[in-house]
C-alpha cells in the first residue's frame, strides 16, 4: 500500500518535472527541473530496492552531467527573442509522426511484452538481491554483460579522445 502510494507520487513528480523542463522559458530553470527529474527517478530506483543504481543515477546524471549542461547554459546567452528559435524549416508533422511511433512502441510493449510476474516489494526488500546489490551488479557486468560493458567503455574512451583532439588541434 505505502509502496503503491509512493510509486504514484514519484511518477507524478517525474512526469511533472519533465513537462516543466520542456515548457519553461528560462533555460537555467529548465536545467534545474531536469535535475529534480533525475532525483525523482533515483527515488523510484530506491523504491525498487536498487540502491546502487539510485546512487549512481544521482552521482553521474544529477551531480555530473547536468552540472556540465548548466555550465554551457549559464555561459552561452540564450535570451534571444523567440522569433529566432522558430525557424521556418520546422516540421510539426515530423514531430507528431515520431511521437506516434514511440506511442505505438509503448503500446506494443504493453500488449505483447508480458513482463512476467511482478515481484512483491516486501519479499524484495529482504532478498539476496536487495542486500547484495553492488556484488550482484558487479557479477552481471563482468560475466553475462561483459562484451556490452567493454564496448560502452571503448565508446566513452573514443569520445574522450575525440573531444581532446577537437579542442587541442595543435597538440
Amino acid at each position, binding site marked *: 500500500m505505502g509502496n503503491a502510494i509512493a510509486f504514484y507520487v514519484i511518477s507524478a513528480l517525474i512526469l511533472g518535472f519533465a513537462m516543466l523542463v520542456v515548457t519553461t522559458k528560462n533555460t537555467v530553470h529548465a536545467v534545474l527541473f531536469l535535475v529534480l527529474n533525475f532525483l525523482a527517478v533515483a527515488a523510484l530506483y530506491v523504491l525498487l530496492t536498487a*540502491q*546502487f543504481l539510485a*546512487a*549512481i543515477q*544521482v*552521482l553521474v546524471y544529477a*551531480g*555530473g552531467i547536468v552540472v556540465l549542461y548548466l555550465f554551457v547554459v549559464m555561459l552561452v546567452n540564450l535570451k534571444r527573442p523567440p522569433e529566432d528559435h522558430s525557424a521556418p524549416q520546422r516540421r510539426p508533422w515530423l514531430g507528431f509522426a515520431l511521437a506516434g511511433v514511440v506511442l505505438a512502441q509503448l503500446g506494443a510493449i504493453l500488449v505483447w511484452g508480458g513482463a512476467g510476474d511482478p515481484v512483491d516489494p516486501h519479499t524484495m526488500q529482504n532478498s539476496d538481491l536487495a*542486500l*547484495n546489490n553492488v556484488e550482484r551488479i558487479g557479477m552481471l557486468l563482468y560475466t553475462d554483460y561483459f562484451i556490452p560493458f567493454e564496448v560502452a567503455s571503448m565508446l566513452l574512451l573514443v569520445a574522450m579522445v575525440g573531444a581532446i583532439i577537437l579542442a587541442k588541434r595543435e597538440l
Partner: protein
Amino acid sequence: MIDTYFIPLVKILFVLNATLIAVTYMVLLERKVIAWVQVRLGPMRVGPYGILQPIADAVKLILKEDITPARADKWVFTAAPILVMVPALITFAVIPFGPSVHLFGRDIPLYITDVNVGLLYIVSVASIGVYGIILGGWASNSKFPLLASLRASAQLISYEVAVTMTLVSLIMTAGSLSMVKIVESQFNAGLWFIFVQPVAFVLFFIGGLAETNRAPFDMAEAEQELTGGFHTEYSGMRFALFFLAEYANMIVVSAVATTLFLGGWLAPFPNVAWLNVLELIPSWMWFLMKTFAFLYVFLWVRATLPRYRYDQLMRLGWKVLIPIAIANVVVTGIVKVLF
C-alpha cells in the same frame, strides 16, 4: 512502531542538532586556533574566554537586513544557500558514531541507517552540493560571484574525480561500501586502514581540503581577487548558510576520513591485547576525538599555508593527484590478487 519510527526520528533530531551546534562552535574554534597561531587571544568578550561568541554571531546574522539584488533570479537566489547546506547535513545519515549501546532495555545502534551503498551515497550527495555554489554565483547577477562560482565548481568537479578514484582503492581493501562494514573489516584486520592505504589517506586529505574550499585551496573565496567569492551578494542569514555549510562539510570530510582510515569508533590498535585498557573510553568518544583531531588539522593547515594559484591548483588535481590515485588502484588490485 517504536523501532521503525520513533527511535530513528529521535536519532535524526539528535544528530542534526549536535551537528549544527558543532558547526557553530567550529567557527569559534577556528577563530581561537588562528588567534593562538598568530599570538593573539581571539574572541574574549562574550562569556568566559568568548565561549558564547557563536550565539552572539547567530543573533547578529539573523537581525541583519536580508538583501536580494535588484536583478537577481529570486527563486534560485533563495534556493542556492539551502542547496549547499542540506547535502552536508543529510550525509550524516550513514555515518556510524559507534556500535550498539544498551539503553532503556533495547540495543540501539549509534548510526541512523546502514545502507549497503553508504560510501557511494556520501559521494553522490556531496556531488549535489556543487549546485548551490554554481547557482548562488549565477543568480546574484553580478560578475565577481559568477567568476568565483565557475572557479569553485571547476575545482570541486576536478577534485571529486581524484577523491572518488582514491575511495575505489579503499573499497577494494575493505570489500564493502557500507560504512559499518568498513569499520568492522578494520576491526577484523586488526589495523586501521591508514596503515594499509597510506597513499590513499594522503590523497583523500588533500582532496578533502579542496572539496571543502579550505585553505590552501580556498579559490572560491579569494578576497583579494574576487571581492569575496560566490557569496558576495548574500547578506544576513543566507550568507550564514553558505558560511556554516563550509564548516558542516569539514565535519563531514573529517567524519568520513575517520571512518575510512582511522578505524571509526575503534580504539587504537584493536589487536594488541595490553592496549585493551583503551576500551574503557566509550567507542563514540573515540570517534569524536578522532574527528576533532582531524578538524584541528584543517584549521592548522589554514593558519600555516598560503593559497595556491588557480592554474597550480588545476595542475595539481589533474596531473598529480588523479594519476597517483589511479596507480594506487592498480597497485591495490595487484597486491590483492597476489596475497
